[in-house]
């Protein structure tokens, strides 16, 4: 069963606008890291941003930021000032409990983001 849920298979946004991609996860770990990856048509997987679960402050990387709600197990990605180069498939990833904790990295089904010029 998928433990990382991305409920928006596709989204579109006007260039220069802001868009938020949602992600919920389920882990029994108490201390963990969450990740957002971008996959452009080249198929390369590129790290966008990561969040440490024990940190209250939401992570930010330039135009990319997260809204992390630990109690709700929600980890959404906000892209500000959207650019044509942001068009890609976006995957959320979270750990799943295992032998030593955190080594299983599980991905969601992805959200395909289209940028409208």
């Amino acid at each position: 069963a998928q433990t990382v849920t991305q409920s928006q298979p596709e989204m579109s946004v006007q260039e220069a606008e802001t868009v938020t991609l949602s992600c919920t996860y389920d882990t029994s770990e108490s201390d963990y890291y969450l990740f957002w990856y971008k996959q452009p048509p080249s198929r390369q997987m590129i790290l966008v941003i990561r969040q440490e679960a024990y940190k209250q402050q939401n992570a930010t990387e330039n135009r990319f930021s997260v809204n992390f709600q630990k109690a709700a197990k929600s980890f959404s990605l906000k892209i500000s000032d959207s650019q044509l180069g942001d068009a890609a498939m976006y995957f959320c990833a979270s750990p799943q409990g295992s032998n030593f904790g955190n080594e299983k990295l599980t991905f969601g089904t992805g959200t395909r983001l289209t940028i409208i010029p």
Partner: protein
Amino acid sequence: DAGITQSPRHKVTETGTPVTLRCHQTENHRYMYWYRQDPGHGLRLIHYSYGVKDTDKGEVSDGYSVSRSKTEDFLLTLESATSSQTSVYFCAIRRHTNTEAFFGQGTRLTVV
């Protein structure tokens, strides 16, 4: 770029034949993973390794086996390929469980 290489990059094989995909890293990372990517399913974990000769199953391990006899190499074997195993396969490596995963370029496997 992280030193991770997958081979082959493309392969077409017949149903019932064994297939081995190779993942090679030059980073000395402890953790290595095999995922498959299919439309509508995202990336699904097949198997992973947390050290030499230490491996465990992921969510879609049936029909696949792995081996890791050296830190740098992680092999994925399809014992008897089926059409349902047609997919894009990604290898990934991680230094620690609190670090991101770095991915290979992917292998497109077609089983006919």
